């Protein structure tokens, strides 16, 4: 992608800035959903339930994945291609494990009788955590792109060029920001559900 960029006024890269703004709009999406939750909860007729313990496990998984991706970023910076690739792979695995844990949490809730089609207290949990999982899967798709790009074998010079390509470095940095954000978002949602559940 050729970007017509020049003489920036500030020292922040426009793409990084666009990402931050995008994160702001995601915050507003979830602010909308969670404030709908609070408003609706305040109106009464609200079925309460206990959050299954598996959501603690998924919280640990997503926090671990943030650590592995941060490691990938460090390995990429230090030109340790193999370790970089492995850390990316670990992040993908942890991300998918998180979604699996969420899914199993939803199934446990359904078994408890908390259904999507029922009192909105349960439906809100499914929709909000589902929309969050969709954001996480978007991140997984991006991780996979970086993962497959990192295993392409080429002649050493080209490989080196790729490794020090500023576009890729920027990409890894932006992905890291997004991934941390999605992790923090879950942490917020988890505490929110624990507190207002």
């Amino acid at each position: 992608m050729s970007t017509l960029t020049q003489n920036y006024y500030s020292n922040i890269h426009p793409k990084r800035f666009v990402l931050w703004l995008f994160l702001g709009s995601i915050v507003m999406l979830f602010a909308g959903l969670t404030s709908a939750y609070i408003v609706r909860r305040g109106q009464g007729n609200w079925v309460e339930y206990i959050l299954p313990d598996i959501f603690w496990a998924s919280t640990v998984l997503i926090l671990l994945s943030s650590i592995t991706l941060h490691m990938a970023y460090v390995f990429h910076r230090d030109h340790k291609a193999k370790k970089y690739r492995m850390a990316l792979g670990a992040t993908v695995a942890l991300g998918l494990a998180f979604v699996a844990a969420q899914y199993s949490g939803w199934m446990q809730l359904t078994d408890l009788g908390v259904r999507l089609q029922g009192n909105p207290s349960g439906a809100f949990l499914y929709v909000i955590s589902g929309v969050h999982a969709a954001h996480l899967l978007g991140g997984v798709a991006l991780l996979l792109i970086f993962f497959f790009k990192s295993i392409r074998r080429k002649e050493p010079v080209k490989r080196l060029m790729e490794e020090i390509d500023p576009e890729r470095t920027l990409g890894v940095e932006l992905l890291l920001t997004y991934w941390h954000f999605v992790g923090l978002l879950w942490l917020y949602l988890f505490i929110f559900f624990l507190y207002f559940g």
Partner: protein
Amino acid sequence: MASTDIHLHDQLGHDHHDDHHHDHHETFLTKYIFSQDHKMIARQFLITGILWAFIGVLFSVLFRLQLGWPNETFPILETLLGAWAEGGKLSPQFYYALVTMHGTIMVFFVLTAGLSGTFSNLLIPLQIGARDMASPFINMLSYWFFLLAGIIMAISLFIQTGPAAGGWTAYPPLSALGQSNLGSQLGMTLWLLSMTMFVVSSLMGGLNYIATVLNMRTKGMTMFRMPLTIWAFFFTAVLGVLSFPVLLSGCILLMFDRSLGTSFYLSDIYIGGEVLTNGAGQMIEGGSAILFQHLFWFLGHPEVYIVILPAMGMVSEVLATNSRKPIFGYHAMVYSIMAITIIAFLVWAHHMFISGMNPFVGSIFVFFTLLIAIPSAIKVFNWITTLWRGSIRFTTATLFSIGFVSLFISGGLTGLFLGNAALDIPLHDTYFVIAHFHIVMGLAAGFGLFAGVYHWYPKLFNGRMMNESLGVMHFWITFIGSYFIFWPMHYLGMTGVPRRYYEFSQFETFNKYDDLNMLISTAAILVFFAQFLFVINFFYSITKGKRMPASLNPWQGTTMEWTTPMEPGHGNWVGKIPEVYRWPYDYEVDGHGFIPQTVSDEQLKQLSKTNVHHS
């Protein structure tokens, strides 16, 4: 993505583009269709917007036929619409579909995408001195998602059950249950899908506009040297980025209610005496229809400022340029826009005074609503004082700008009535509301759009200009005609005539206004046909319009877009981007007619010595 060969270096703070050539090979596809040039994307937004405006206004003419002549039949309607107008009379179902589509199309496709999509794209890079947007690729996608939203909405016009018909606000349960209304079946699904695409488009656009304004200004272009247009586009984008996601969250919950049997908005629904059940056979309960109203209006109210702020910005620019005077109160203007942006998020519930809200909560929203009148009034004052004792050049753009100020005052004053809960409760859902928001938001923003098109047409279409005589005719018919449409509606509304009624002949209280409705409809039809003066002028001038004078600065403006070539290529300036040395409103200063932003003090001294003045 590799279609352009202007590869500028991504290094921060470096300026390496002097040696780049701009005449590169472009195919029809890369130049006109998959273009990443912000100017081409602006044209795409504008022409798509004009197309939608034609459809949206045509729809209003169709339902005005029903309201103006409820007892007549128009065989032509049956020819055109088939089963929707059997016997030459609109079916009630289709009447509601037309009203809904008119609102949706005008608010989102015309006055959001067509207005801020066009002019943010065109003017942000040109007026701040940037070669393009922060991400031209995302900018291109923004247009393509808008087009996709439009195509989905257009498809919904042609399906058997018809388009969404529950009002542009799409309140559940009407919009949530297919049983309630034909339009709430497939039409509503497509409406939601289209709006989702539209939110994506407007987010992509908005992110780009903000990043571009904050990061890509040329040397010397400090924030407080930016033209008011840029300030307005900037805060418009901020509003959009923060409020559209909330609409999306409301739409997501509505989609779940419609398709997956949840009950976020639904509770205790009985249809034909039967209780409504979900897939599991249980009664649907526990939802709150008011919840949707909160989520909708949290976007919905900032949305009216998304519509009006770009128009305000352009009007400020056009008025200052054509009164040959500095804008009055530049900083006050900027802080007013800022204040409007902030308060815009705190007034949404004034649309919901009759929803059974706690009167104390209501009074808080009354307070903020009246508060927002202050920055609005400051802006009006500043426009008038800018015009005051100016050497006004009555170009078409000036006329439309003055028209804007007039409409904004007329419509704004009735906003004070409606913002008070005590007055809003009797006036709610009457024609008084229709009159208010059409004048202050619809017409005023439309006039801003026209002012922008007439003023910046040379920058949109290769240095050509629109015909001024046709433009002036267009203005006067539209201006007078519009007041004839909406002024009488105040009287209808004050006597309690409700909006959204198919006909009034069965209501003795209201059917005595048949003559007034006929007058309104006649004016609407006249104004509709007057728009062809604009359309003809617009499309004719693209290829045949007079070229702007050799100074390349037809209105003798100070801003940077007038320093670009007659037909700027992708990258806008040949060679180095000019630097900026002053604010954009140096008109009639020290004997100079006007001083462009790019003229430094040394150059100015040289000019004074050689006695060559700019005017």
